[in-house]
């Protein structure tokens, strides 16, 4: 059966709660702040929310169920998306079908996480069963070490060099300097990138994100609902997800996007050339480079050449991760999987302020999440268009 389209689904009220490196506040606190801001910007009250989708690593022992009572919400549709960096797009996908079907009228999609001293170590050691059994006991380098292995294999296979990854990181820092909520506030040069202290070779300091606390969110509804309430919005043109793609690959050189990208462009009625700005999931620059390839902006293995021949800054010919991405804005746990989507909605609704890409009409957002053992398992992508 041909997949049904996403006609009439819109996204409004993009919200980013400013990140903090370490905070004593809980995930419940961060999520509540994001919800409150979303409702305020859409002139809604909590009773207007009849759908809720939550992504968080640090709600334990609660689940989104407990959150409804904690926050006094009575949704008739509730979802939990434990997919890390793929969460934002996948929450949107699920919510889109709920509002299309009338299971809900207004869904709040929200992601937020706490970050206390030592909470990152605790998260790493209990991230997944395979990680506990087969990756954490090997140096406990966490995702830095796991993705360093992927980067090492990628560089050996395709000849990519640190300066290619540096172009991604340096451009994002330039973008972050124009984003008021970014954790990183000072410029970054390619020389600084290349001479950074090693973290897990080939990665240096500026290949890695800064774990922090924060929250992100947006509202999903039908277009007529948004029109009736006088909200500005972006439209959902198409979206895909895939899990555990290419399990036979000895080491991850491609993500699940490569399986589904043609369908994404097909249902969205456009191609790579029509994309005005791209928000990739940048837990590491090499992963963004893989997304350039797997999302069809260049051929496999051509990522290094692609970044060398394009300007990835806000005013460049290929605006990428316009709010600085996680590399420069910070990684607030599961909210990192929302960062690009929320920024894309701001871009398409003219709310991006200092990071606004002129004439942005079509944006692509991709997500990537959950390194269960040796590779990221979840991939997702969406194409959004500016709307009313």
């Amino acid at each position: 059966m041909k997949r049904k389209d996403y006609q009439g689904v819109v996204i409004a009220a993009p919200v980013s709660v400013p990140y903090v490196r370490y905070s004593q506040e809980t995930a419940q606190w961060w999520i509540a702040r994001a919800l409150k801001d979303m409702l305020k910007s859409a002139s809604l009250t909590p009773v207007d929310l009849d759908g809720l989708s939550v992504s968080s690593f640090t709600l334990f022992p609660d689940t989104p169920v407990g959150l409804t009572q904690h926050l006094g919400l009575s949704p008739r549709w509730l979802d939990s998306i434990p997919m890390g960096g793929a969460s934002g797009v996948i929450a949107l996908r699920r919510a889109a079908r709920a509002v299309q079907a009338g299971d809900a009228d207004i869904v709040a999609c929200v992601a937020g996480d706490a970050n206390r001293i030592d909470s990152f170590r605790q998260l790493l050691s209990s991230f997944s069963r395979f990680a506990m059994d087969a990756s954490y006991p090997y140096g406990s380098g966490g995702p830095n070490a796991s993705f360093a292995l992927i980067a090492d294999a990628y560089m050996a296979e395709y000849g990519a060099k640190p300066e290619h990854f540096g172009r991604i990181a340096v451009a994002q820092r330039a973008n972050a300097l124009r984003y008021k909520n970014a954790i990183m506030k000072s410029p970054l040069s390619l020389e600084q990138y290349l001479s950074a202290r090693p973290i897990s070779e080939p990665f240096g300091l500026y290949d890695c994100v800064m774990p922090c606390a924060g929250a992100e969110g947006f509202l999903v509804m039908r277009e007529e609902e948004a029109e009736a309430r006088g909200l500005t919005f972006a439209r959902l043109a198409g979206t895909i997800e895939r899990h555990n793609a290419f399990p036979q690959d000895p080491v991850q050189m491609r993500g699940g996007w490569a399986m589904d990208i043609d369908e994404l462009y097909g249902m969205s009625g456009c191609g790579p050339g029509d994309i005005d700005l791209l928000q990739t999931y940048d837990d590491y620059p090499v992963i963004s480079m893989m997304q350039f390839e797997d999302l069809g902006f260049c051929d496999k293995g051509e990522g290094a050449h692609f970044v060398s021949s394009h300007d990835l800054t806000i005013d460049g010919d290929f605006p990428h991760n316009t709010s600085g991405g996680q590399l420069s804005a910070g990684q607030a746990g599961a909210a990192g999987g929302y960062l690009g989507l929320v920024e894309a909605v701001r871009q398409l609704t003219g709310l991006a302020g200092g990071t606004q890409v002129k004439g942005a009409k079509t944006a692509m957002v991709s997500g990537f999440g959950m390194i269960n053992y040796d590779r990221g398992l979840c991939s997702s992508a969406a194409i959004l268009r500016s709307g009313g």
Partner: protein
Amino acid sequence: MSEKLPPPAKKNPQLRQRVPTLPPVARSRAALGLTAAAARGRFMLQHCAECGAVQYPPRDACASCLCVALEWRDTGRKARIIAETRIHVSPDPYFRERLPWRTGLARLEAGPTVLCHLHGDVGRGDAVMMDLKLDKAGQGVMIALPETRSADMEDDPLLRALTADPKHRRILVTDLRSAIAKPLIEALLAAGASHVFAGEPEAWRRGSERDAIAALDQVSVMPLDVTDQASVSRLAGEIGGKTDIVINTARHVRPGGVLGSDTVFAREEFEINALGLMRLAQGFGPAMCSRTADGTNSAAAFVNILSVHALSADPGYGAFSASQAAAYSISQTLRSEFRSSGLRVMNVFTGPTDDEWHQPLPPPKVTAGALAKAIVAGLKSGVEDVFCGDVAKDLEERWRRDPKVLERELTGGGA
């Protein structure tokens, strides 16, 4: 090539001794299969009983056909390193004090990709031999070793932490009157032990090899009677702080069942074989546990020599078998009590030894030389359980297959 490990410098008593930390210890039940294989020096992975697919990481259902019958089988060790990294930042205290730490991805010829520790002599592109070793937490971990032996490869710091190599270590052999004492001491010195303390009970009784042992370089004969608490404490007070490996050779064997006229022999066997082990552990254990991170000559292992009839009694040696079962049980508790320090307990199970107390038994019997060799090999490879000799290996296999069938055969009931 690995750098040759230099002898340790003399210890500076003014420096604080490093407190032992452990690598991550938590594992799922399935992953403990790796530990069980590593403890015996085997390289085993789960194989699907239905489609044969080899699985890694350990799991509960086949990733090819969803069959839940996964069997641990010996698996080919050949692999190639397809990626490597050197970790410079780790939040885990154990790794943090050993940075940088190298890991890699190994593609096994058997199928799966394995994240593993890298021996210093291997890197991306290399053909390697995989091994499962017990780490300081006592858990089985994957390590990629050179395809062919490289010079001094056992001196690699990572590999050394995964073994209890006698090289540069000071070792107590608890009873020099044991038939195995002299060949064992010679084998330990040949393996690079820096000093051997040889315990001597009842010094007034001259054992035949006593003078030959005392004449060896780097060997000190010390008074030690494992049936005497005070004697054990005295020696522990004197050398406990510089004993890196204890090998308990004290043992008392008398033939006969349990329906004899009294319990004199049995009492003697328990005093030496079971309670003697406890006294040694109480005397030497705590100091050794505090010294497991003490550099090149850190405390590494506590070794018991047990009859394989610790697992299932030999009625011809009834009371002796019981004392061995007791000693085996004590060794298991010691493993638990030593766990937080990383001090390893190695049990060497042997069949009938070729000595006066097993004289009427038919061959095969284990010679003192073979036993000595097995102990040193076990320490070098870092295993927890060694089965020495054909009888012990055969019995282990039958015990694994069905303890009840073995019991019936040993107690008379087989064909």
